């Protein structure tokens, strides 16, 4: 069984971010988008864990839907895929519920570290 927490490749696809800059014609806006994404996603991941603790499968899946969308937009592919998995398969109290959410937390940490480096002007 593969460990769902093991991130493959880059946490964030730099090409996706470059495409966003090109699309909006505004590099400053991309910086702003990343800020919004980081704040919003931190809240969303916390809300997912909280909903899981409550046993609210529907809420977890709903939050995962948006997590998937915004992560795909920003180029966080692994996190988007994890979001899709949570959206489709998460069941509160099931055997892999905790593992799945932990994987989301770990991958988001990786994405956040990568994006924060970028925000400080370090592209690599």
């Amino acid at each position, binding site marked *: 069984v593969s460990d769902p927490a093991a991130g493959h490749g880059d946490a964030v696809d730099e090409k996706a971010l470059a495409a966003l800059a090109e699309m909006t014609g505004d590099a400053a806006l991309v910086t702003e988008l990343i800020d919004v994404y980081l704040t919003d996603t931190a809240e969303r991941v916390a809300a997912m864990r909280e909903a899981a603790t409550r046993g609210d499968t529907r809420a977890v899946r709903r939050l995962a839907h948006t997590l998937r*969308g915004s992560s795909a*937009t920003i180029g966080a592919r692994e996190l988007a895929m994890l979001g899709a998995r949570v959206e489709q398969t998460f069941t509160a109290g099931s055997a892999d519920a905790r593992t799945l959410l932990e994987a989301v937390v770990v991958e988001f940490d990786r994405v956040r570290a990568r994006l924060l480096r970028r925000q400080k002007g370090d592209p690599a």
Partner: protein
Amino acid sequence: VKVLVVDDDPVSRMLLKATVVRLGHEVTVAENGAEAWRLFSAAPSPLVLTDWMMDDVDGLELCRRIRARPSAPYTYVILLTAKDARAHYVQGIEAGADDFLGKPFDHDLLAARIHVAQRILGLRDHVEHLERLLPICMYCKKIRNPDERWLRVEEFITTRTSEQLTHGICPDCYVTVARPAVARALRDRQR
């Protein structure tokens, strides 16, 4: 064109707004379906770009509400859907959506979809303008109904509007038509 952008994901909302503004349109944003409906009810926009999946009032419900308004100018609705929502397109069409766009959206596709929306809204305006032009006979003043029948003005008005007509005589016709006709009738009777 005025565009209402509706998305509960702040990242997607910001990006959509920036992109649509850059394409040269005027954008209003709403964070959810309920807010969108409030904004739309206060000032309807001809184009609505809405996320499908939202809590409470979702994209489908917003669409239904927009379509349920009686005799309003047409609003073109584009539903934003996650890529795997293609199987649910029929649901979207039945709710009254005009078009769909996958998320994360592609810039060129979005530009193309908005272009099509503008073209259709333009045609719609043209049709409404033509509907307002009434062909009227220059001699007898009958009016051509959309079913091609020529109707007297009073028939036309009573079939097309809720107005009830009552016959009377205006002062001009009283002098030029009614009074001479009465005088003629009296003369005929005296013979």
